[in-house]
């Protein structure tokens, strides 16, 4: 069980131009937890996620994924455990047809062609896109691209799923489908999003980030319904709660 723990200890990161993006981040995610990462643009969400996948290495502090400390040498190993779904599906779907995109990961894992085929079909089935197997990615709708992008990651059978703004640009129905999909995944999930309603729906736990620091870490129910806390961090209540919640006079 412990091999699925994500642990960050006092992580600092600065960009080459000097901007300090992460200023001492510490938290721990255990197996099966789903955590929402919330904050304004520029708060450091994406930077944090990129650190989790080894694309950026912390200047100070430690990250360990399943007991493996993150470093330049262990990057590859970490990437086998952590499935990263990027913000824009177009960046993630770079092969000529969907099948090849989903097969890309398994092939790189060194699996036999039969196994690869199995993984591809299962992953596409999981996201409901098996019929799109032979389509070129530029002929997919935004929602379909999203789902296929997730499939490309799922085909690698990662232990931990990290997603950056999975719901952006989706029409209401696709968004609903995505939420249902995510709720069905039993993996450890870390999801950065502006869509507070989605976080509320999908993640039991929530971390609020502001200016590269964690300002709150607790259950989504508690944090995301705390209007004061949200406003302090330049956020708002989830839309679905904005009219139901009765304002209490101070």
């Amino acid at each position, binding site marked *: 069980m412990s091999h699925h723990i994500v642990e960050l200890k006092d992580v600092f990161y600065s960009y080459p131009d000097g901007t300090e993006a992460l200023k001492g981040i510490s938290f721990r995610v255990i197996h099966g937890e789903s955590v929402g990462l919330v904050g304004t643009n520029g708060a450091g969400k994406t930077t944090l996620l990129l650190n989790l996948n080894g*694309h950026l290495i912390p200047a100070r502090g430690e990250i360990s994924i399943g007991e493996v400390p993150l470093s330049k040498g262990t990057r590859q190993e970490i990437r086998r455990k952590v499935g*990263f779904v*990027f913000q824009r599906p*177009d960046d*993630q779907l*770079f092969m000529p047809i969907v099948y090849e995109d989903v097969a890309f990961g398994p092939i790189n894992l060194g699996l036999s062609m039969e196994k690869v085929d199995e993984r591809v079909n299962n992953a596409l089935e999981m996201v409901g896109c098996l019929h799109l197997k032979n389509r070129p990615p530029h002929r997919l709708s935004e929602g379909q691209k999203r789902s296929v992008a997730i499939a490309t*990651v799922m085909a*690698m059978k990662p232990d931990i799923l990290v997603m950056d703004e999975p719901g952006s640009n989706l029409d209401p129905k696709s968004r609903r489908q995505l939420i249902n999909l995510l709720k069905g995944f039993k993996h450890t999930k870390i999801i950065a999003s502006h869509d507070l309603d989605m976080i509320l729906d999908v993640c039991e736990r929530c971390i609020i980030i502001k200016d590269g620091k964690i300002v709150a870490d607790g259950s989504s129910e508690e944090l995301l319904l705390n209007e004061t806390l949200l406003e302090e961090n330049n956020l708002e209540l989830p839309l679905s709660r904005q009219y139901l919640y009765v304002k209490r006079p101070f």
Partner: protein
Amino acid sequence: MTFDLEFFNLGYLDTLSNKDTLVHRIDPRIKIIVSFIFILFVVSFQKYQISSLMPFFLYPVFLLTAGDIPFKAIAKKVIVVSPFALFIGIFNPIFDTNVILTPFGIPVSGGWLSFFSIIIKFVLTVSTAILLIAVTSFPGICEALERMKVPKIFVIQLLFLYRYLFVLLDEALRMVRAREARSFGSRGKEIRTFIRLISVLLIRSVERAERIYRAMLSRGFRGEIRVLRRLHLRYFDIVFAAVSITMFYILRNYDAVDLIGATLNRLLR
């Protein structure tokens, strides 16, 4: 042609290439080789030959009809790219005024003959090129190239180009539209604005390439990309190639047109 039209044209040909007809199913390698040989035969004709070129229209016509490709679309494209060839060709009648034929007493100079020869060759070769992509998917062509020993790194990068072509055209289109909305006449279209636009597009493209690279790394990329093998040569493909090439050879070296004409002549006498 305006941006919009070119963009949709590209998409249109791309859609056509994904159809499923007899011609579409022929192995891309065969189509490439046969088309190439076709072009070689066509351009090997002498400069004054016109009539013997005519039978060669069979090939593009075959591709068009059996491939279910709309004629108008192809015709439009051929016309659009004709300026350069026409421009060079039109000098022939100017410089070559040696009269070679006088049908019905009208003198026709060699220059005009060679001009028409150029036009016909042009239509034949250009339509074949467009039809090739119209009946063959681009990834299919790329795999064919790789199987024909074209360096893999070149083919892979071709595939990437194709993949992101529409994405980038879309981005550029949006920028052009934004510029349109704020320009009046030719103001706003000056080279300075253009440089800014292109530079921004360039930076965005590089950033996109960086993100793609990251996505590749995330899925275990370590330098090798496998192009999946999906092409299978069928009996039909080989027969098609043999028949076509033989036909081209016969039509090039034995004047069928002449034969038909002479026979007709004899019959009518």
